[in-house]
């Protein structure tokens, strides 16, 4: 029974994970003479590099802002009533169709009539998208913080600000860094919000979507391959940092 179950699990894993790498394989299979020709072509395309650079810059900003905001909101974990309010926010932000939320933000930006505000509202949209993940990631860390530590800190007269900065942040700094990388990956790859909010700016996800949908330029396989590679490396880094933070906590 155990062997059958393990075979099923491996099959599921292969089915879910492997297809992603098929496009990676296709990106090298254009010609037997020069397997990197599509990579050379895409790197020489100004549009691709501009879209990538804009997405990287925006994702770094989103990563920093969301990590800070997510940390403050995630502190609700330590109080049951506050936690329920945050859970509701997480559920709503995560489950309402992104197209509708993004259009709501877009309409709001038009109402304010701020000129050249596309990038600002794109950051807001991406921030609201990655916020639930940041909070959940931090909560998975707080789960291991013993209640006695907070109680003791309060008993010796520490103020909330000091508890938050010196104890909670101190104990979850690696997770906070993981959440920054996680936010960066999410923002870099997000399509619907950038589509509705970025205006005339062309983000990486928009660029990939339009090129893949039209299917006219085959060098986009290489563009896709590059984004998969970047995401995979960053994801690996996130889990290494996350694992390190948990291990060091257990040792402590």
């Amino acid at each position, binding site marked *: 029974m155990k062997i059958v179950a393990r075979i099923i699990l491996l099959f599921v894993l292969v089915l879910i994970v492997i297809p992603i790498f098929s496009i990676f394989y296709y990106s090298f299979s254009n010609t037997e003479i020069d397997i990197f020709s599509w990579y050379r072509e895409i790197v020489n395309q100004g549009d691709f590099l501009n879209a990538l650079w804009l997405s990287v810059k925006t994702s770094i900003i989103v990563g920093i802002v969301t990590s800070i905001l997510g940390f403050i909101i995630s502190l609700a974990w330590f109080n049951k009533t506050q936690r329920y309010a945050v859970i509701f926010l997480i559920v709503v932000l995560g489950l309402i169709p992104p*197209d509708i939320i993004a*259009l*709501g933000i877009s309409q*709001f930006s038009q109402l304010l009539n701020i000129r050249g505000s596309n990038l600002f509202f794109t950051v807001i949209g991406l921030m609201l998208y990655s916020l639930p993940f940041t909070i959940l990631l931090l909560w998975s860390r707080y789960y291991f913080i013993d209640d006695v530590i907070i109680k003791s800190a309060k008993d010796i007269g520490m103020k909330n600000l000091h508890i938050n900065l010196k104890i909670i942040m101190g104990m979850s700094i690696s997770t906070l860094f993981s959440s920054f990388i996680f936010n960066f990956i999410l923002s870099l790859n997000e399509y619907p919000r950038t589509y509705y909010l970025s205006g005339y700016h062309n983000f990486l996800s928009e660029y990939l979507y339009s090129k893949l949908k039209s299917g006219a330029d085959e060098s986009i396989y290489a563009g896709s391959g590059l984004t998969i590679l970047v995401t995979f490396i960053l994801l690996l880094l996130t889990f290494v940092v996350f694992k390190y933070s948990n291990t060091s906590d257990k040792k402590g």
Partner: protein
Amino acid sequence: MHSNKVISNTLLHLLLIICGIPFVFLFIFSFIEIVNGKEIFSLSSFKELFSPIRLTELKTITLRAVLVSLCATLVSFIISYFLFKNASKRFQLIFLVLLTIPLLINESVRVFSWQLLLAENGLFNSMLSTFIGNEVTLFNGSNGNNVIFVMLVSIIPFGIFINTASLSVTPKIYWKVSKDIGMKPTATFFKIVLPISKTSIAITFIISFFLAFSLSSEVNFLGGASKISIRNLVLSFMSSGNFSAIFLLGSILTLLIFFIGISIKSYKKS
């Protein structure tokens, strides 16, 4: 249970309100129509959203979401059970980590990868044809199988995360007692595992439903002739200038989530 408040209610509520602004505006914009550059109160969004054509589109999206979420809930629960009972902690961790990869990859790249594999002359049909011995075209753009299949593959990981987490925090005494009284695996599954997991199964279904309801790229890339998705519905409303109908739909979904949340909380209390 943690009960130490380390953040003031004022600050937390202020931040939650700021994050909730888009939803407040969804509600307000549902009743506003712009006529000659002026915003006026109007209920035309109801008329537009509940027109026969839109209702048919919404019905298609909803039924597809129900079908996908039912299948995803069932499959993800069985996989989670297998994972929990038959795999080591190390394998569980690796399995769950690997499952996050497709979720973080660019949406269009992920769906396009599937498009390559599920094409009429793609890898999946070729493998099936070899296995059966006849030429099979089970996966193709015109019968919707592709869309359902890729939606399932996209949503099942979420279900696995929820159910595995739920099974992991189940008190070990349940498993010990079932073993001590000599229950067989099938009986343990139906008499112990299913009853104690009903909340996580319900939550998986609800989350899967809303996720399936939102998925659009799958339909746009793989849907063939039929391309009814929430994004296409939104774009269609936009092109006809009926923004308020989109926001009304968003408000209805928000209220629905709020109602489900309160129901689950009341059920857990009782």
